[in-house]
């Protein structure tokens, strides 16, 4: 195993070539979908995919330690953190793809294209030496991990220590940034219960979506007359304006259902039509 | 080594500025007295300089020389010639009066907090300006001079922008806006000039390899420093532009009326009577001495600009409705005379110009400070708000009239001597220029007398009926200045004796001889 990996580090086998072209395509597609997906969750997942591919590439390049760390830290920790935040912010919140800054998209495209071309041209022009491979370097201290450890704790020990400091600072910083000072005493259980009893909502709040054949938290439950009830949706979502309104849809469905059943039962169509028109009007009003 | 008198003369007001600034907030009067004492001390030192200076001796006397920035050959070189002595004396003389006249101008208003210390700042800044101006008259190193030339803008900026004339028509915000406009305009104009001068200073160093005035002048004189004609012209223009802004010469003058109008009267006096003199002084010392050929090359244009300044400034003064702006335009006219005298390149013209700098300083100080007393009483700068003051405050009117008569160069008062010398000097070299400049004396009479007539004579206006006459402090400002005007008008010899040798040196620098009288030339 060691030998084959060492060989892979110094030269490119056909297998590696195949792997590169296959996974490279995946990585690029992942990157592009990170950029182009409307929903943040999708972007995050695409990015995670790209990162895993990159981890494989690290391994292929002889950076075993980094490959593993990439999976553990990046895909495992950082991307999960991203997902948490995405959830906090609102998982369904989709970007509108309409550009607001004039000419931004064109400029971005132009710059991106120019930059890419130039970068690739630069690499193409650069007189890159033939690859030495990491065999010797890895073997020096008895393995890739040992080699890295040797460097980290000797040559780069200060940088390493400083990154430690950086991490701690970042942790404290994050706590500070997200921390909210209490402006008043926290309510006790007793107080909360008393408050609840005094309020008009002693029973639990109605569940969202229950009357509307949807059960997502962001869809308001409909009252018997078809109007959505604000109470059924979380306060946070309400404030964000992330409530999806399906009342019109529901009413239309209801109407269709009634029509179908009416046809099948052969009831007076004229009455039904009148009733359905009324319903439709109501539905429109609600939609408005 | 002897006692560094020149450094001491400049350092004393600087120390005074620091001490004054450090006086605690509650001790306003102590700060004022401190500043006054330091300025009087400076006057004593300036008197010593005047006494120790030997008119017949070396060109630069009381010299001091220390290396400063060795890498560029910048030195702390001091030394005074007769022109420097005269202007140094003027500066040291005027500052006590300026301080005394501005005794209450920077008192904090009641709305200010008790920790607010404008008075200390005002007096300290004035002393700071004094220190810098004095040092700039003493510097014989181009770089040192340049630094001072620029540095004095900073305290001046704060003096103009921070301590406005309280007699402003209109709201407080409006006044503040006008003031800051004036201060910024002052700063931008002078900075622009200074920037161009900086380029020229660097250029001079590149060409000459030294910043020392005497070294360069000597090298120029003995031919070891050849300067290509176009190089010299460009360098000259760089220097001259800065000085013309400062002087100020038409058409670079528009900052002066704003600055003088918006600043308190003592600061206005400081601008026109002291700081602007650095510009004309520098023309005489740096432009003519370092670039004699270019100076001669540019003479026709500069003379025309000076003439335009004379006539234009006077005409605009006639058209002003604001007392302080009127005096500012009058000063522009007078600076035209000074430049005319300098660039006429005759002994009479240059002696006259130097004398003019001194006399103009005194006469403008007298007129402007008394005008300031008047303005403070009524709280307005508009001429139309006055009338009949003569009846209620005869001493004020009398001193104002004498200041005005000095401004219009009445024979018997000091400015006449200098103005006539300038005219004669200009006339003997360029007759037409002399004749056109003479028209300026009629216009001067016009603007002064119109001002006097509209403010002081006629029926007593209701708004001035209760106006008190000059108080003791104000008399202490006005009377010595008037006495000096009369003394120097009758007996200018002490000044001319000091100035004459220096002028002869300058004439040698530009290699010009006075035109011979026709009769003697014929013989």
């Amino acid at each position: 195993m060691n030998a084959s990996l060492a060989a892979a580090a110094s030269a490119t086998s056909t297998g590696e070539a195949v792997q590169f072209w296959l996974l490279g395509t995946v990585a690029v597609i992942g990157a592009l979908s990170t950029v182009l997906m409307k929903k943040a969750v999708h972007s995050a997942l695409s990015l995670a995919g790209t990162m895993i591919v990159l981890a494989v590439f690290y391994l292929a390049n002889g950076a075993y330690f980094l490959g593993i760390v990439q999976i553990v830290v990046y895909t495992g920790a950082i991307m999960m953190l991203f997902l948490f935040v995405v959830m906090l912010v609102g998982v369904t919140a989709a970007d509108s793809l309409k550009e607001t800054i004039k000419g931004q998209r064109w400029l971005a495209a132009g710059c991106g294209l120019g930059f890419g071309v130039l970068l690739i041209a630069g690499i193409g022009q650069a007189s890159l030496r033939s690859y030495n491979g990491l065999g010797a370097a890895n073997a020096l201290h008895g393995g890739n991990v040992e080699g890295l450890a040797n460097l980290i704790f000797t040559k780069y020990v200060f940088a390493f220590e400083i990154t430690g400091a950086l991490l701690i600072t970042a942790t404290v910083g994050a706590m500070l940034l997200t921390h909210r000072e209490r402006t008043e005493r926290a309510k006790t259980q007793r107080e909360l219960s008393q408050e609840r009893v005094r309020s008009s909502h002693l029973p639990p709040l109605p569940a969202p979506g229950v009357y509307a054949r949807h059960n997502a938290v962001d869809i308001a439950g409909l009252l018997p007359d078809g109007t959505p009830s604000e109470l059924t949706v979380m306060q946070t979502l309400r404030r964000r304006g992330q409530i999806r309104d399906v009342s019109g849809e529901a009413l239309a469905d209801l109407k269709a259902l009634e029509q179908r059943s009416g046809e099948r039962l052969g009831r007076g169509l004229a009455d039904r039509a009148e009733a359905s028109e009324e319903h439709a009007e109501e539905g429109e009003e609600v939609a408005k | 080594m002897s006692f560094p008198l020149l450094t001491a003369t400049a350092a004393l007001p600087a120390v005074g500025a620091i001490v004054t600034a450090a006086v605690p907030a509650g001790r306003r009067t102590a700060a004022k007295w401190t500043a006054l004492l330091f300025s009087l001390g400076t006057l004593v030192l300036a008197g010593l300089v005047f006494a120790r200076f030997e008119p017949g001796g070396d060109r630069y006397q009381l010299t001091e020389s220390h290396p400063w920035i060795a890498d560029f050959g910048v030195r702390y070189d001091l030394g005074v010639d007769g022109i420097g002595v005269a202007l140094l004396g003027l500066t040291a003389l005027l500052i006590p009066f300026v301080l005394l006249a501005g005794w209450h101008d920077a008192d904090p208003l009641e709305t200010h907090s008790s920790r607010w210390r404008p008075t200390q700042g005002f007096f300290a800044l004035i002393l700071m300006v004094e220190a810098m101006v004095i040092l700039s008259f003493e510097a014989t190193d181009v770089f040192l001079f340049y630094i001072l030339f620029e540095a004095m803008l900073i305290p001046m900026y704060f003096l103009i922008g921070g301590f406005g004339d309280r007699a402003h028509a209109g709201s407080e915000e409006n006044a503040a806006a006008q003031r800051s406009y004036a201060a910024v305009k002052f700063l931008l104009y002078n900075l622009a000039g200074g920037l161009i001068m900086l380029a020229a200073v660097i250029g001079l160093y590149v060409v000459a390899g030294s910043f020392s005035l005497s070294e360069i002048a000597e090298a120029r004189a003995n031919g070891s420093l050849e300067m290509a004609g176009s190089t010299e012209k460009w360098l000259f223009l760089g220097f001259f532009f800065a000085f013309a802004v400062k002087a100020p010469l038409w058409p670079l003058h528009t900052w002066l009326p704003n600055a003088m109008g918006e600043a308190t009267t003592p600061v206005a006096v400081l601008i026109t009577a002291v700081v602007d003199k650095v510009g004309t002084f520098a023309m005489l010392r740096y432009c003519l001495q370092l670039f004699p050929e270019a100076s001669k090359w540019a003479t026709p244009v500069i003379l025309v600009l000076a003439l335009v300044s004379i006539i234009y400034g006077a005409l605009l003064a006639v058209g002003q409705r604001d007392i302080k702006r009127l005096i500012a335009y009058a000063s522009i006219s007078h600076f035209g005379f000074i430049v005319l005298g300098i660039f006429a390149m005759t002994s009479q013209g240059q002696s006259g110009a130097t004398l003019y700098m001194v006399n103009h300083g005194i006469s403008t100080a007298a007129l402007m400070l008394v005008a300031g007393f008047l303005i403070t009483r009524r709280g307005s700068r508009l001429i139309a708000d006055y009338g009949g003051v003569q009846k209620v405050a005869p001493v004020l009117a009398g001193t104002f009239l004498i200041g005005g008569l000095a401004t219009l160069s009445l024979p018997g008062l000091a400015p006449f001597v200098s103005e006539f010398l300038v005219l004669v000097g200009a006339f003997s070299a360029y007759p037409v220029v002399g004749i056109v400049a003479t028209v300026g004396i009629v216009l001067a009479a016009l603007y002064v007398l119109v001002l006097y007539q509209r403010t002081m004579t006629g029926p007593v206006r209701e708004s001035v009926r209760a106006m008190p006459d000059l108080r003791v402090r104000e008399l202490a400002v006005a009377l010595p200045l008037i006495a000096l005007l009369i003394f120097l008008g009758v007996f200018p010899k002490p000044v001319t004796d000091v100035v004459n040798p220096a002028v002869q040196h300058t004439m040698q620098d530009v290699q010009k001889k006075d035109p011979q009288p026709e009769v003697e030339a014929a013989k």
Partner: protein
Amino acid sequence: MNPVNYLYLAALLFTIGASGVLIRRNAIVVFMCIELMLNACNLALVSFSRMHGNLDGQILAFFTMVVAAAEVVVGLAIIVSLFRSRHSASVDDASLMKL
């Protein structure tokens, strides 16, 4: 295959990431794009490490990861607190950096 291709891939990913930063308005996605750029750099570093035959490049990539982790922590915290105050994660909403 020439291992240089890894570099081309890194350049491509970097460019895509950069363009994403420019185009997207959702702060989280922008942040992800930044991560993508960092990863592209890491790939290049690892590839260089292989090219030169020593481990310094990998060390640098390692540090990049550490720093990126720290950055993500702080950055996401900023996004969250921004979101709290503005109820939005759009970078365009915070356009106060002008006169």
